């Protein structure tokens, strides 16, 4: 169980959220919504330990979140991709960072990048770049997926595939936390977490 207690984040004297607590059980998906600037990104980064909080603690199965590195998959606004390398090279580096065995050609086929494997990522279109980052979801062995606007620049079919992927992960007992301004089908959302814009 992933639980966060009393999170407080203040930015430039504006309270983004205060005493926020949340809990997520295995096999659940939490859909974080809110208007622009509400603090969704900040919350997600805090949950994976990439943000210093004024207050609060986050645990996963009674363990502090900063100690479960390999159990987290975080895909944020930044793609973690070197634009000078090809999609395949980027993927291979990711594979060996997470020590997963997988066939890179097949994976790139799955995200629709066949034929573009030898093109440096900087020539790809916005959506294709995003796909190179999202391919991590296919091979992830992490329990917790924290995804910040995964659908950005992704076309209709892509969005459907991603939702299906969430579903599969949930069925395998994974945790998904996702933000998006595009609505998710209600059938897969277990908790909706609304962040309001605070002044």
């Amino acid at each position, binding site marked *: 169980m992933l639980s966060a207690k009393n999170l407080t984040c203040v930015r430039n004297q504006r309270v983004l959220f205060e005493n926020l607590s949340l809990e997520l059980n295995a096999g659940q998906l939490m859909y974080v919504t809110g208007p*622009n600037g509400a603090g969704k990104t900040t919350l997600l980064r805090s949950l994976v330990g990439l943000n210093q909080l004024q207050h609060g603690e986050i645990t996963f199965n009674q363990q502090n979140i900063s100690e479960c590195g390999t159990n987290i998959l975080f895909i944020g606004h930044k793609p973690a991709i070197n634009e000078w390398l090809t999609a395949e090279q980027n993927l291979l580096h990711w594979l060996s960072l997470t020590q997963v065995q997988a066939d890179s050609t097949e994976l790139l086929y799955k995200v629709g990048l066949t034929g573009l494997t030898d093109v440096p990522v900087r020539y790809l279109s916005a959506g294709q770049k995003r796909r190179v980052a999202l391919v991590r979801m296919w091979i992830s062995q992490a329990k917790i997926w924290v995804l910040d606007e995964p659908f950005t620049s992704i076309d209709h079919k892509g969005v459907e595939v991603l939702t299906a992927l969430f579903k599969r992960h949930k069925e395998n007992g994974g945790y998904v936390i996702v933000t998006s301004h595009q609505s998710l089908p209600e059938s897969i959302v277990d908790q909706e977490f609304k962040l309001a*814009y605070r002044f």
Partner: protein
Amino acid sequence: MGAFDSFAEFISMNGYADYVWSSYGIAALLIVGLVFWSKHKRKQLIEEIKQQDEIKKRRSQHTNSEMSL
């Protein structure tokens, strides 16, 4: 006049006036300047904090986070 025979001699520092007086002058300038700069910074900061406090108050009335035509 202490070590000097006359006031004129004191001013001229027996030929080293430029060096001695300018170093004392610069020293005085820098030290006084530092003190005043620190004071100025403090005033500036207090102004800023006051302003921010007001902004914060105003924010709660006058803000908009939504787009409109």
